[in-house]
């Protein structure tokens, strides 16, 4: 298995100047997802969870300026038992960025959000709004996590997609 080499606590968010590596990747959302699906596909259950933990470790810590916004904005995904806050955004250069805060006691959710963040980073928001519904199936995570847990993850995909779709509409 290819372990993802990221430091504990993840990459720092860089404002706009230096984009994270995946934002400079010219591949589209689908191609990036295909690559990540391939990473998961042949792993056994334990390895899949280990890879999710690697992704979780790569999710950047929430920038300080977002911390205060948690209390006043409707950013929480209420369908999730654990606190999950999502900001689907458009950076000034025009690309998509998913800023997220997931409680450390939910590494599965955190890892999955990191997958989504990597898939959309720097892509046009209209394209970020086309995140497909079958990511969990294709990664083989449904069997590993069970139906009750995947419900929360699906609602995260829906929430992210909706957020980017709104941004795309406001841009048009």
């Amino acid at each position, binding site marked *: 298995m290819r372990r993802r080499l990221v430091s504990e606590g993840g990459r720092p968010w860089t404002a706009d100047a230096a984009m994270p590596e995946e934002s400079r990747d010219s591949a589209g959302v689908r191609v990036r997802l295909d690559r990540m699906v391939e990473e998961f596909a042949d792993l056994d259950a*334990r390895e899949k*969870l*280990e890879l*999710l*933990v690697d992704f*979780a470790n790569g999710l950047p810590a929430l920038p300080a300026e977002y911390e205060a916004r948690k209390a006043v904005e409707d950013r929480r995904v*209420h*369908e999730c*038992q*654990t606190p999950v806050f999502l900001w689907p955004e458009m950076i000034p250069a025009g690309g998509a960025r998913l800023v997220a805060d997931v409680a450390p*006691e*939910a*590494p*599965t*959710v955190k*890892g999955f959000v990191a997958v989504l963040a990597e898939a959309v980073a720097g892509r046009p928001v209209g394209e970020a709004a086309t995140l497909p519904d079958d990511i969990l199936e294709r990664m083989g995570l449904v*069997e*590993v*996590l*069970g*139906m*009750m*847990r995947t*419900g*929360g993850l*699906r*609602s995260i995909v*829906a*929430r992210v997609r909706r957020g980017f779709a709104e941004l795309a509409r406001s841009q048009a």
Partner: protein
Amino acid sequence: MPEYAQPDILVSTEWVAEHLTDPRVRIVESDEDRALYVQGHVPGAVEIDWQTDLQDPLQRDYIDRAAFERLCAERGIAKDTTVVFYGDKSNWWACYAFWVFKLYGHADCRIMNGGRKRWGLDGRPWSTERVTHPRTTYAATEQDGSIRALRDEVLRHQKAGRQLLDVRSPEEYRGERMHMPDYPNEGAVRGGHVPGAVNVPWPMNCNDDGTFRSAKELEKLYIRELKMKRRSPTIAYCRIGERSSLTWFVLRYLLGFGNVKNYDGSWLEWGNAVRMPIVRGPEPHGTSAATRAASDACATPPVHA
């Protein structure tokens, strides 16, 4: 100073640390988030997952007796093993796994008080090794119906006005938290609670460090304030039966209730089934159906568009 009814049912992290390699003891982790076990577990602990290990993949039920026997054999658990459960979230899922083990008659089950949180706070080591133990043979008993309530029994229990606890959050109990967009699989069609059920949210059983509250505090809550009787038949429910297995554990083992059952079908069954009595609001007997119909007719806009 009152003691727990069965103080030995709880073991400390220190006790576990001293028994990590004891062949008579098996440590079992059960979590809401399975990746926590992968991140690090008590050395030598095996994982038993409430969903993928303990639930039947097809029928909405627990695994059958043969599957339970296979599970124990694979995890190196024998009939006379002392099984110590622990996990995240103040041991919700640990209590759930404990309850399923009791359902199949495993004699010696314990809970590590404080679970993952207390283990970490005590500065004890985490391991990421892949754990295997020598296979056993295991013969389970038939399911013990004395700790599991099914829907019809809950209905009779409710009609008889017996002790019924709803351990969900007050918002769920009052029937307010219902709107679940993009979430077709897990919701209940109707919100509210079983008429007569008293709301005692599960966190009231626990301290911030994940341990159970003292016998004195638990007695004050359940016996003195809620006037519950240890001898009266009692049923606890939540949304899917996990939080209520923690309350079941508290009532049965820490307070010594003689007859307490977990309704594992819980609100996910009750709130979806046809003709089940439901009330809303903060009181056990809630708002009556007639009053509710009248107020619903006047209400604009509708609560759930």
